[in-house]
């Protein structure tokens, strides 16, 4: 079954005099992997922030699973099953990895009474399985803040999976990760998409990564939608090449 899970239409966002996003329209196919590329400062993260409700948009509409979400607050949107990871990785530094995972259990499925319970054995097993999945099992009892940047990124990814989102927005998942680990990460992202059925929407600067993974790619430049299409089309689009080389 396919169809758009995230629909962005006519979204604009300015910060003072800077138009970070101008009349952006795009959609993310349910169950697919969609990429978002563009030079630095082209408005990719702003678009992500607008989608997850981090700041109000100036105009336009954002729909998630056929529901208008542009006026909703961050935690509300997250509880609908639309989750994001951060470019500057965010984890709970003073808690260990297992605790980080357990606190990421989906709160949309949690009643007040559930909040006053302890985590079940199944929850713990799932946390450990997912930590194993990203290769952090042996470090699971260490403080998350003591992990390396790349490991924290993997942990953040595992936490997102623990939350069982419908769709996951990843802001530069491979940035700062050791090149030899990148292939492993690509495999895991693909697995998360194929096996857990999570729709992925990825900002990525590493062209090799995004061209390999995405079904559809959108390219932003100067806050506007420059091009969209399949990876091969984007790769050969002269406007995209110019944007990256600074001729735009």
């Amino acid at each position, binding site marked *: 079954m396919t169809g758009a899970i995230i629909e962005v239409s006519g979204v604009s966002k300015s910060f003072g005099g800077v138009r970070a996003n101008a009349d952006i329209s795009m959609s993310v196919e349910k169950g697919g992997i969609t990429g978002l590329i563009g030079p630095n400062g082209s408005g990719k993260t702003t678009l992500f922030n607008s989608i*997850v409700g981090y700041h109000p948009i100036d105009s336009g509409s954002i729909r998630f699973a056929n529901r208008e979400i542009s006026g909703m607050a961050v935690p509300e949107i997250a509880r609908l099953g639309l989750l*994001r990871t951060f470019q500057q990785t965010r*984890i*709970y*530094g003073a808690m260990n990895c297992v605790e980080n995972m357990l*606190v990421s*259990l989906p*709160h949309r499925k949690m009643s007040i009474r559930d909040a006053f319970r302890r985590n079940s054995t199944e929850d713990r097993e799932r946390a450990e399985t997912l930590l194993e999945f990203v290769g952090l099992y042996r470090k699971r*009892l260490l403080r998350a803040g003591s992990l390396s940047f790349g490991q924290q990124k993997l942990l953040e990814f595992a936490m997102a999976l623990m939350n069982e989102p419908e769709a996951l927005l990843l802001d530069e998942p491979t940035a700062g990760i050791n090149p030899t680990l990148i292939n492993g990460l690509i495999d895991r992202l693909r697995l998360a998409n194929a096996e857990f059925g999570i729709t992925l929407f990825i900002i990525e600067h590493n062209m090799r990564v995004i061209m390999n993974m995405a079904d559809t790619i959108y390219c932003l430049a100067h806050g506007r939608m420059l091009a969209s299409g399949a990876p091969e089309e984007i790769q050969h689009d002269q406007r995209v090449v110019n944007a990256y080389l600074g001729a735009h």
Partner: protein
Amino acid sequence: MTMRRLVFYGALLALSLAAPFLFPAFKTQLATLWLMIIVALSWDMTGGQMGYNSLGNIFFYGTGMYVAAVITIAIAHDVGEYTAASGGGIYTWTWGQYFAGLVIGTLGAGFFCAVCAAVIGWITFGLRGPYFAIGTLGVAIAAGELVSNWDWVGGGQGITMPNYPGDFERFKLLIYYLFAALGITLFVFVSWLYSTRFGAAINAIRDDEEKAEAMGIHTLRYKMVTWAMAAVFVGAAGAVSAFQLIHFEPLETAYQTINLGIFMVVCVLLGGKGTLWGPVIGAVMFHAFKEVTWSYFLGWQWIALGALIVVVVVYFQDGLMGYLRQRRPDWFGMRVDAGETP
């Protein structure tokens, strides 16, 4: 629970119950020690576990005192007439009325303070970091000033509680056990709370509130509920203090922002923020230090206390438990697992 822990907690409980008989001359100091433990543990619920450093928790202490006083007086008399006569000595309470005041007053103080915390929290939890600390401090100071101008509750003169209708030594014993019961209840409560998902969620708010929001945690709800739970215990402790002190006034006793209001924070810093035992150990260390300086360095006691605060804040922010956790992380279960992966 392992056998060793059972023995440890059993011995501690026995010591707590026997303390006023082992040291009969120190009943009041021991009761005050429990008070310090209560305010430190409840301060740490928001300050240490949730990352919201309140300087206004003393508001609940003072408000608890006044709520208990008003309830106790209202049970037997008209509050306005009673405060207008400044006690006057012509007012009496029966045993039944006194104990009804003690029970209803303490429970009522806890309940009222929880409601206050939810309301004040709803407003102040928009503030972060030092702004939250100053905002809550402002609430406590303002409350003290308002109450000292409110004649119905005695204004700046304060308010006088009924005398215990019995032997004074037994009264001290009663107060000790009330504080001890409250402290033990609080300790059991928080050690349970921190083991639940609720405890993990407030830790998440402490470590990165923006991330917690992005993961769908109801942050404001958790913050309000946590503060309200802390306020129940501070308010109830204030109520017991009101009965203990018999007479109290608003600025120096009830809303004593610069004394108890700061001491509770220092206790937690000394013992270690965000740990279960830190506030308890810190309260014991602080209270011992304070009693020693007050007894042997009278005249210099405030300077000694100020020096202690400066040293703790500058050199020892993580407290005793924090120091141990840094030196011996393996004691706290933080280690690389060398075992087989599943």
